[in-house]
């Protein structure tokens, strides 16, 4: 596995992609799946960054404070995010569209504020209980938790991503997957088809949260430090851009979008000051000129159709002239 990774990195190296870059690309791909799940169900949720934060903190708490191995931290991170996502999802998923987006952004901001003040909250509770001033430092607020071992390995990311892809593929073949698509198309009609819309949406929301949390655990064990600021509005928008860049017509899209968005800043390093301008241009260019994103079977079909139409037009012209003849 390591040899494979090494070979892959060697191939990518000329592009400026080193192993850490590859690792973050893979984390992004996982995040791409997380947002794909909700978007595929027609839910414009931007809560992924918040759940990533929850996953990261819960996972690190397990590995760092309780000395658990990474895999256990992963499970705990995912479980905590899943548990928190339930009560959030129930009320919030009644909202639609931009309202859902804002509510979930709000959720993300609240998560950050709570993480920032976690120690203070705990301290004041402890103070109230003990009757004297207690200072507890656990999550360290804005200072962040430092010295997290870099225990995420590239092969783990590959393996986990492969597992998620397999699950996604099966999901699409299942009743649940079809119900998700139906809800995206028309929620009321889906309800009238006997689909429990609230249930399906919540299941998907939890799945999305759990996947985002896994990305959080993995990336926390890559960056060595986690602080709340890294999971804010910007991150939420970033994750959304994976889906848009890659396209959401198939689940491959957001994965590719995540990989590409992870690679771009590094691949474009040689541009120096112009790097930001180019990333903006690329994002805009893809949206404008590649409808449906980078990965879009319909787009390919469209291209084919255009070609065929050119032929067709010739046939039309022929038919027209034969009409005009009599």
């Amino acid at each position, binding site marked *: 596995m390591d040899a494979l990774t090494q070979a892959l990195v060697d191939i990518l190296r000329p592009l400026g992609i080193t192993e850490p870059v590859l690792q973050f690309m893979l984390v992004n791909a996982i995040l791409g799946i997380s947002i794909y799940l909700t978007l595929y169900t027609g839910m414009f949720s931007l809560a992924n960054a918040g759940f990533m934060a929850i996953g990261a903190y819960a996972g690190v708490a397990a590995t760092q404070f309780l000395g658990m191995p990474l895999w256990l931290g992963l499970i705990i991170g995912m479980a905590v995010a899943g548990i928190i996502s339930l009560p959030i999802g129930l009320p919030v998923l009644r909202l639609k569209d931009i309202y859902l987006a804002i509510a979930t952004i709000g959720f993300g901001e609240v998560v950050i504020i709570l993480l920032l003040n976690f120690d203070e909250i705990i301290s004041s509770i402890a103070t109230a209980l003990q009757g004297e001033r207690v200072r507890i430092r656990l999550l360290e607020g804005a200072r962040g938790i430092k010295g997290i071992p870099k225990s995420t390995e590239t092969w783990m990311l590959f393996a986990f991503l492969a597992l998620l892809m397999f699950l996604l593929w099966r999901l699409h073949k299942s009743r649940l997957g079809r119900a998700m698509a139906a809800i995206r198309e028309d929620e009321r009609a889906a309800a009238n088809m006997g689909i429990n819309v609230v249930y399906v949406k919540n299941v998907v929301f939890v799945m999305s949260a759990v996947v985002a949390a896994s990305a959080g655990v993995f990336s926390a064990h890559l960056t060595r430090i986690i602080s709340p600021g890294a999971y804010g509005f910007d991150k939420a928008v970033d994750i959304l851009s994976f889906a848009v860049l890659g396209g959401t017509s198939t689940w491959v899209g957001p994965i590719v979008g995540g990989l590409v968005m992870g690679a771009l800043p590094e691949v474009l390093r040689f541009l120096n000051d112009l790097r930001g301008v180019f990333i903006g241009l690329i994002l805009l260019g893809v949206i404008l000129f590649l409808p449906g994103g980078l990965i879009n079977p319909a787009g390919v079909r469209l291209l084919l*159709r255009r070609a*065929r*139409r050119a032929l*067709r037009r010739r046939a*039309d012209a022929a038919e*027209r002239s034969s*009409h*005009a003849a009599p």
Partner: protein
Amino acid sequence: MALLEVSDLWVSYGMIAALRSVSFKLEEGQVVTLIGANGAGKSTTLNTLSGLLRASAGSIRFNGVEMIGRRPDRIAAMGMVQVPEGRQVIANMSVAENLTAGAHVRRDGRTDEELAAIYARFPRLNERRTQKAGLLSGGEQQMLAVGRALMMQPTLLMMDEPSMGLAPLLVKDVFRIIAEIKERGISILLVEQNARQALAIADYAYVLERGKVVAEGTAAELSNNPAILAAYLG
């Protein structure tokens, strides 16, 4: 010169050719109806006339002026006004606002008089003047759509299935209104499923089938044509 002269019109959606060499004419003051089955291309024809769709070939002359390539808003301002299929009232505007929304293209400045006339004709709209149009029932919305088009001082009114979804009483009303509009000298291009009533009111009719004109004639001729009777009049 005919008021409207359509010749050799071709329109396609992507690969599908929806209209293949459609030609027809409409004289000033006439009611002409297009009839045909679902998907025959009736709405496509109207949408092309009003500039929403682009023809790949052919010509549309209105008062002798070529209309192909003009923007829909210009076409409407020139007097070719369409009542779109499926109501399309502006949901978040009140009934009154919907009625005046298009009135700015009027050239005679008699907006208020027309408005009063429309309220007189549709008392239901008058009752609901301040209600949001989106909350009207289907039939109420249809009345509103017709009223709104009249506010635009049309020379040629193109109506796409105006009786769709209306209660029998209102269907009669709609046809009565069409007759009255005709009395006022406004020409009408009427697309209808309700072929019997359409023919009853029309001067001339064309039958469309899979994007082609397959029959034409005066309304009387077509009403007595056994093939047409069997296919469209039931």
